[in-house]
């Protein structure tokens, strides 16, 4: 395997060195420290801390809710991006700016706002309560919060790709006899699928790690609506550093495996893009 790039562009060594140093400083060294700390208790200690029933339940809540929220964003984020790109209407720029709000808002503020809306006495909660649906202070509340913070990722990754999409491909498909539905599912969707998956992965990753907004709306009932990041904070407050880092390392591993899987899936969807 060659280290040197055969590219005639200069600066490969410098930029690679910089990239590695930067990634090490910002990502790898802190994470290595985390792993080191977790290993302090030995293999058995790590396993018993990381695989305790309460921890497993918290993982299920965290990953399950994040997955559902990311799926919701996949569909509705695409819809939002579609409307913003395809149609011109008064207030389009404003609507476009609103999409970024979940990025900017302190997540705790979002959590409190959503909790008061969906609480049984809140505007939405009061409407839903007679139907027997309780959103706030349960897993549904977590999904709502995670959907909120994950929305911009799908919209912002799909939007430019949709914008660049050749209208002529649609026109040619229509001329060849395709209905609107076939044009969308056979021509447009495959073209934006890689971007859609990227947005999905980002929204999912963000949702897994989310803490601030969730704890206000979740109810935090162990085994039902307690998320893994909260459990880490609880362990820290009890000075159980090994327990906290063990959970963190498990989360890290699970997230890494899932993101890798999404990446591979994404690569497969762009297998046509050979150069």
């Amino acid at each position, binding site marked *: 395997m060659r280290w040197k790039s055969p590219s005639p562009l200069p600066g490969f060594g410098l930029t690679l060195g910089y990239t590695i140093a930067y990634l090490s400083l910002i990502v790898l060294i802190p994470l290595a420290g985390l792993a080191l700390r977790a290993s302090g208790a030995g293999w058995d200690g790590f396993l018993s801390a990381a695989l305790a029933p309460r921890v497993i339940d918290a993982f299920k809540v965290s990953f399950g809710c994040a997955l559902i929220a990311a799926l919701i964003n996949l569909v509705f984020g695409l819809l939002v991006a579609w409307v913003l790109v395809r149609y011109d209407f008064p207030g389009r720029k404003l609507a476009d700016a609103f999409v970024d709000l979940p990025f900017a808002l302190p997540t705790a503020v979002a959590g409190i706002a959503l909790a008061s809306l969906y609480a049984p006495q809140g505007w939405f909660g009061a409407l839903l309560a007679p139907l027997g649906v309780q959103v706030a202070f349960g897993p549904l509340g977590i999904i709502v919060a995670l959907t909120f913070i994950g929305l911009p990722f799908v919209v912002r990754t799909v939007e430019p790709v949709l914008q660049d999409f050749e209208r002529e491909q649609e026109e040619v498909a*229509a001329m060849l006899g395709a209905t609107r539905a076939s044009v969308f599912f056979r021509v447009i969707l495959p073209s934006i699928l890689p971007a859609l998956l990227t947005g999905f992965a980002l929204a999912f990753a963000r949702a897994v790690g989310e803490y601030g907004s969730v704890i206000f709306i979740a109810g935090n009932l162990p085994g039902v609506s307690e998320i893994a990041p909260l459990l880490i904070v609880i362990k820290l407050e009890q000075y159980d550093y090994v327990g906290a880092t063990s959970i963190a390392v498990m989360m890290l591993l699970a997230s890494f495996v899932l993101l890798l899987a999404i990446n591979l899936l994404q690569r497969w969807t762009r297998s*046509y893009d050979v150069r």
Partner: protein
Amino acid sequence: MNIDIKAITKRFGAFAALNAVDLQVRDGELLALLGPSGSGKTTLLRIIAGLENADSGEVLFGGENALERHPRDRGVGFVFQHYALFRHMTVFDNVAFGLTVRPRAARPPKAEIARRVTELLKLVQLDWLAERYPTQLSGGQRQRVALARALAVEPRVLLLDEPFGALDAKVRKELRRWLRRLHDDMGLTSVFVTHDQEEALELADRVVVMNKGGIEQVGSPAEVYRDPASAFVYEFLGDVNRLEVEIEGGAARLAGPGGPPLGGVTGRGGPAVAPAVAYVRPYDIDLVPAAPNDAGFTVGVIRHVQEVGPLIRAEVDLHGTLLEAAKTVHHGGGEDKTVEWRQGDRVRVSFRRGVVFAADANKPLALAPFHIPGGGAGEFHAVRT
């Protein structure tokens, strides 16, 4: 399938893209829509295809109103300049698209689709690339795939929007000939848009010259080239010298004080002075070495001589106006009877033929050479392109 276009008008805001355009496309012909950008040629093509709606007017396909029909029901194959291939599909799937997308009841069985696609790919000589993706093909190959894809649904009409515009010169030429053969073999009615006059003249049965949302002239390539109907067509087709002139007493002379006479203008006598514009093709200009006593004639100086392939071009300064003259070279076989052109030579300039558009006349007037005493330009007419 003949196509009747009646009074088609299309506006984009305040801009009139098409202004009550009438055109008949004959069954089985290959028609070129030629014009500069913004002339409305692509808009007209897109209206025929149904990709654009006309504000008013009619399009009839074989006598039936086509505008009421959805593009997919018009039986039209469309080819775009930038191919518009589906990037995520193989060449095979691209060509098969028009068949696989049909509702189940109308869809041919898989084996039949495969047979037809392979047949079409053989026709465009790309069957060996069936499993490749469009990004792996060259421009010429992509355009051929796009053509095969358009032909897969067995259209009655083939519409091509600048089909060779994105290709390099050599591939363009090859593909042009190939398209001509394909058109003839398949018995299609085809309309293509181009801004390349050479392409239109070489490929089409008839050429429609468009300008500013209207049709300037319709005719065979030879007709539009030899007898342009308007100043615009004259200027747009082929190389031409444009000269500001004044008509006086049945003769045209260069505009401005002391402008030398250029030739007689037929069909316009009288002493009135009228401003006009004359058009003369470079190879309709003869240059003969000027004699010392030629003061009364139209005499200019050769500023520059250039040999391009079989052509010799000269730039002549005639009373401050630069003209381009051209003649073919006779390399080898046969004696070159014409006089050699040299930079700096004083030459007598005569215009063998040309056309004059007078501001106060609505049809073009012919520019003819004066009778030149003492032999005249006649003996130099041996060379024509």
